[in-house]
């Protein structure tokens, strides 16, 4: 049987000034075809001005089990937020 086309992750910039955003994935034999297919699958209604395609197998993802060790440390650092600091109204806007 034929080999299945590899999977690509598709990122689209909806307009200049915004980041490319992950919109989904699709199968294609190579990068060029992946871009053409992404045009047809994800931008039929002018949803984009630029497309990135990345082979899915090249993406390294953090493991769901690492969620705690990775993100919990940020939890007790309220002093990173401006609202942590009480500044008298008399000071004016800051």
């Amino acid at each position, binding site marked *: 049987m034929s080999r*299945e086309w590899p999977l690509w992750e598709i990122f689209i910039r909806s307009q200049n000034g915004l980041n490319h955003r992950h919109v989904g994935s699709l199968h294609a034999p*190579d990068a060029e075809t992946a871009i053409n297919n992404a045009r047809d699958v994800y931008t039929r209604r002018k949803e984009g001005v630029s497309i990135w395609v990345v082979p899915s197998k090249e993406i390294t993802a953090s493991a769901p089990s690492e969620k705690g060790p990775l993100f919990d440390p940020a939890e007790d650092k309220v002093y990173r937020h401006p609202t942590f600091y009480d500044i008298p109204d008399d000071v004016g806007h800051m």
Partner: protein
Amino acid sequence: MYAQMVKSEGSSGEQTPEEKGFQARIDAGDKIEPKEWMPEGYRKTLIRQISQHAHSEIVGQLPEGNWITRAPTLERKQILLAKVQDEAGHGLYLYSAAETLGISRDEMLEQLHSGKAKYSSIFNYPTLTWADMGAIGWLVDGAAIMNQVPLQRTSYGPYSRAMIRICKEESFHQRQGYHIMMKMARGTDAQREMAQDALNRFWYPALMMFGPSDANSVHSEQSMAWKIKINTNDELRQRFVNETVPQAEFLGLEVPDPDLAWNEEKGGYDFTQPDWDEFFEVLKGNGPCNKERLGTRVQAWEEGAWFRDGLTAYADKAAKRREAAATAAE
């Protein structure tokens, strides 16, 4: 509904601590994302449901594809082409959502082509006249919307995102269908008759799209707890009838149900159930077009093999050439 009668694979007996934690997350409205822990039954049921939905989008192109070359105007032809292309897109969104659960698209296609996987019964009915394009957009996409709107809130992230994308596009499908019906219903006597005939033929098959009553089904209870099913089949069917009957009245067409009547008490219409024996026959493969639909799918897949393989060979060759060039440059 595009996924009718999906068997749910609940675990039997006591919930493990992991399962309890999982259910608590769903109850709290948390979304489940790929690779996170999930009960095997949740994963399997979702694969079955999402792939069934994807197959429906893909096979659903065929009854309408039948009329692309015969659309009455160039504009109608462009519209129908765009709609059918959307359905192909819907199929692809859903296949890739299912792939995040650990099944490949080729495996799913294999299940479709071998007849192991199901698709919605509605696409096994023939499209005999141009008015059928109107009836399908209006009723079939209308029924699909009824089911898909609540599914935007489903618990599985990739499925929910696919549903959101699809729902954005479905409204055009329904409106272009209703627009065709309006034109026909206000046209010549012959056109009006065609519109009425299309409604007559598609009304009950559209009601079947929601699947048989599942009010007391264990499967749907499990799926509802997992939030991969949001409403019962009967709820959605009732909603569809309530919404559609006034639309038919506006067209001056008659819903082919002599017992259709507004029920003040329940705030909805009483209506005749479709013939469920017919539904089960169609699901079993004995509908008017099952063989033709599946045959067309398989033929397209097989006859496209040389092309897919050719592109793969070209990609391999180009990759090798790039490799050689990189080595030479070192």
